[in-house]
């Protein structure tokens, strides 16, 4: 995973709350068996509307999504994160994220920062005043700066550390190989087994 320190990019204000993962990527796109190339699938249904904000030239190449509360609710599909990432998003800011979405995002190097309701409105206002404005997101400092506006965001320490270091979870876990084996040796016989073991 690539290390994330700071990122500067165009802000896409998505003025909706409870954007569920079915909207971020409709189920038809889940049939693919690859892990990349989902950029066309992002908000696919909404994008059919020429007025949808992602279709507006001012926001071309946007890489920081600023959305209403409860972003990423619904299905656990990690494809939602892949679609955002493949389209070019590096950061999503929202007052509230669904848990699974947040977890998935952290694993793909997509920063999910929690901001206050007032800051959300302030960012949206700043972008309305200057469509296409760029924001600088600093993960070390947990700040997002757009024009004169400087906003603090929340992200848990562990996820932040992993993103800053670009660390892969499996590699980290396998450092505990011995403890896992010890735990396995203690497991009771009644626990389920899907296939007979010799």
């Amino acid at each position: 995973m690539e290390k994330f320190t700071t990122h500067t990019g165009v802000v896409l204000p998505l003025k909706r709350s409870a954007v569920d993962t079915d909207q971020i990527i409709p189920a038809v796109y889940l049939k693919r068996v690859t892990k990349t190339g989902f950029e066309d699938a992002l908000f696919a249904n909404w994008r059919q509307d020429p007025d949808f904000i992602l279709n507006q030239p001012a926001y071309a190449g946007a890489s920081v999504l600023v959305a209403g509360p409860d972003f990423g609710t619904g299905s656990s599909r990690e494809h939602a994160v892949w679609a955002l990432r493949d389209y070019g998003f590096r950061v999503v800011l929202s007052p509230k994220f669904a848990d699974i979405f947040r977890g998935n995002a952290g694993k793909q190097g997509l920063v999910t920062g929690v901001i206050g309701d007032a800051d959300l409105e302030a960012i949206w206002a700043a972008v309305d005043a200057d469509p296409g404005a760029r924001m600088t997101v600093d993960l070390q400092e947990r700040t997002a700066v757009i024009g004169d506006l400087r906003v603090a965001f929340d992200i848990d320490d562990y996820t932040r550390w992993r993103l800053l270091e670009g660390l892969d979870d499996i590699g980290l876990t396998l450092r505990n190989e011995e403890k896992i084996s010890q735990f396995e040796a203690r497991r009771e016989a009644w626990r389920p087994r899907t296939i007979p073991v010799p």
Partner: protein
Amino acid sequence: MSTAIPDRPRTLAEKVWDDHLVVKGEGGEPDLIYIDLHLVHEVTSPQAFDGLRAEGRPVRRLDLTIATEDHNTPTLDIDKPIADLTSRTQIETLRRNAAEFGVRLHSLGDKEQGIVHVVGPQLGLTMPGITVVCGDSHTSTHGAFGAMAFGIGTSEVEHVLATQTLPLKPFKTMAITVEGTVKPGVSAKDVILAVIAKIGTNGGQGYVLEFRGSAIRALSMEGRMTICNMSIEAGARAGMVAPDDTTFAYLKGRPHAPAGADWDDAVAYWRTLPSDEGAVYDAEVFLDADELEPFVTWGTNPGQGVSLSGVVPAPEDFADPNERVAAQRALEYMDLVAGTPLKEVPVDAVFMGSCTNSRIEDLRQFASIIRGRTKADGVRVMVVPGSARVRLEAEVEGLDKVFTDFGAEWRFAGCSMCLGMNPDQLAPGERCASTSNRNFEGRQGKGGRTHLVSPLVAAATAVLGRLASPSDLPVLTAAEA
């Protein structure tokens, strides 16, 4: 299997968590939790297997892993090649991966094939006090047994395949106590829809919900599964019900349930799992079962629900500005006018299925209402069993005949119109009463409109062609019944 167990009363969720601690996280790091059972399906696994291949890693515990085909499988002509090429590729990819890595797989046509959350419990693999994960949010279903069960993303699927563990922060706990006795015609689905309407689609965020109280104790395992299944619709990580004699009776004798001395050991342990007297929850919610009525959603998220005898709400009814905007959008999408009695809303289709309500008991409930009746003209009624085994059981009981006599389509097992990844979809603008769990825009087909209901309400709706509860149906004469 004790690692330093805290000396204070603990909740069910805490006990299961503590018993799966491989490494206790220090200083903000997550705990490393052992996973007892990993369920796999075709949609969220291909990229995980790719990841293993890329790193040259095997599946660590094939004996704790099982796969089934469900999301893409057709429910007609299952002996023919799958027509949709992308669906076929996804399923063939799972078959290839399962063969290459040695994972047990139940393919279309196999009698244990079906929706992953129906298959685990029916095989007796889902049991109290275990941890269960699957790359699917409705993994919460398995919590009905007193297991800690939750959905994970594809990266986590790869992580579990490789290590049989997951790094996780402990969840918060919320007790949802439902006391009393539900009225006839009110079922588990109505209980959970009422809970979601009460706490909101994000009210459970970060929590494990523990459902308790006399109304929950009185439920069958199927009913408990329906409730835990939809915990995710309240934003929760998981839902749980403490194991009791109902749980043990359901499990005993199932193919993978413990037997002999193992059974006795297991039951002795399982009896220690219910939350201790005085255990503290991070949040508590109370519901009066006697007050509950059949419930239905009117909007495009599962929290937008009301009692079926009510009317479509107006955006102004909501104090929260976000909810008001969401209600406005939902009414437009659903093509509903505020103030309309829900029982006057006509439907084009009825979908009886999904991991929420496709077990044998659900099919029996549906059948009990439609038996001796004919479906409303012009309404398409689809009955899709949750697994091939449920289909067989239903046929042994003659339920298939009840469905087809009624005018319903009796299909093969799978997710089907719950999310329409296979050809079972609503046409744009069509309105459906559905026993599934999500009424998001386009969930059952682009432009389709979904009303979430219980099997009993779905059945009555199929008879009358408009949203209805069983009590709205004319009484059958002795000859008809």
